[in-house]
């Protein structure tokens, strides 16, 4: 099974988290992302939305897919730019977005603590890849 792999190079060591890819709801979007991974960019925090990290991506133009309100753990494409967005904690969504992957509920506690750092300490290198993992 393929999953989205995020590796964040924090000062005290790498943090790695995997996210389930929603092939059933965003197949074209995931196919486009598969063409640009792996890539890296400094991760930063959103400034209006409560608990959201952001990552600029290589350029690709796609149509909206699975355009919906995010929940904690969801990862989406914001088409303007474009950039990835990831929600790590409670949120009052400010709009719909193209959700293509989700961090598993059992990983959310650590994910919340790690990604919450990006407000106080933005700029850690995040590497995005799609890799084969055992189910």
């Amino acid at each position, binding site marked *: 099974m393929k999953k989205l792999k995020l590796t964040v190079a924090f000062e005290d060591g790498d943090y790695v988290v995997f996210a389930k890819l929603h092939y059933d709801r965003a197949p074209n979007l995931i196919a486009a992302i598969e063409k640009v991974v792996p*890539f*890296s*960019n*400094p991760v*930063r*925090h959103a*400034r209006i939305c409560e*608990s959201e990290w952001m990552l*600029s991506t*290589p*350029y690709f*133009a796609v149509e909206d897919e699975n355009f919906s309100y995010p929940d904690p753990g969801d990862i989406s494409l914001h*088409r*303007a*730019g*474009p*950039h990835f967005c990831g929600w*790590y*904690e409670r949120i009052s969504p400010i709009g719909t977005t193209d959700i293509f992957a989700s961090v598993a509920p059992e990983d959310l506690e650590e994910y*919340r*603590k790690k990604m*919450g*750092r990006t*407000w*106080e300490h*933005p*700029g850690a*290198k995040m590497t995005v890849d799609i890799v084969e993992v055992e189910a």
Partner: protein
Amino acid sequence: MNPIAQELFEAGDRYLMERPDDIVAMRTRMGTRGQNMTVQIYAFSALSSSVDAMYLLQEAVAKDEYDFDTVVKFAVDWLSTLAPPADDSQTHAIIGHRASIHYRLDNLADLVSRASAAIKRAKTRDEVREVLQALEHYLNQVRTWIDLEFPWHELAVRYAEIMGDPVPRPAP
């Protein structure tokens, strides 16, 4: 591919992990009373709006609901707020030189100028869309590095003190 689109895409890709030289220059541009904060805020806002504008225009130019000349005119006029087209460098209005004079983003101003002239010369929707997408990518990457330069957290804490707002919540 149009040479200026190629140049913009390559610069954008390079800036995924490489801090643009323009950011160093921008940090030396002092605004009112010798401070840099307002320069950064204005540059960040201008580029953020421009990324959205390029995104909307590259979508619009692919559709027939807007006529070609209108999309080209609006794109060039919008880009003129950052830098005038390379074939119209006599424009000296304040609104036309923000990238270089206001923010000291000189490389960005040069690329935007040449891209804007290329859009004016383009004959087809595909040609225009390619340059707009390249601009969207390039401006997004430069915008990202301004974002990373700005001490949002520290200033948010100080802002709350000044305004008498609640103390910002700590990290989870």
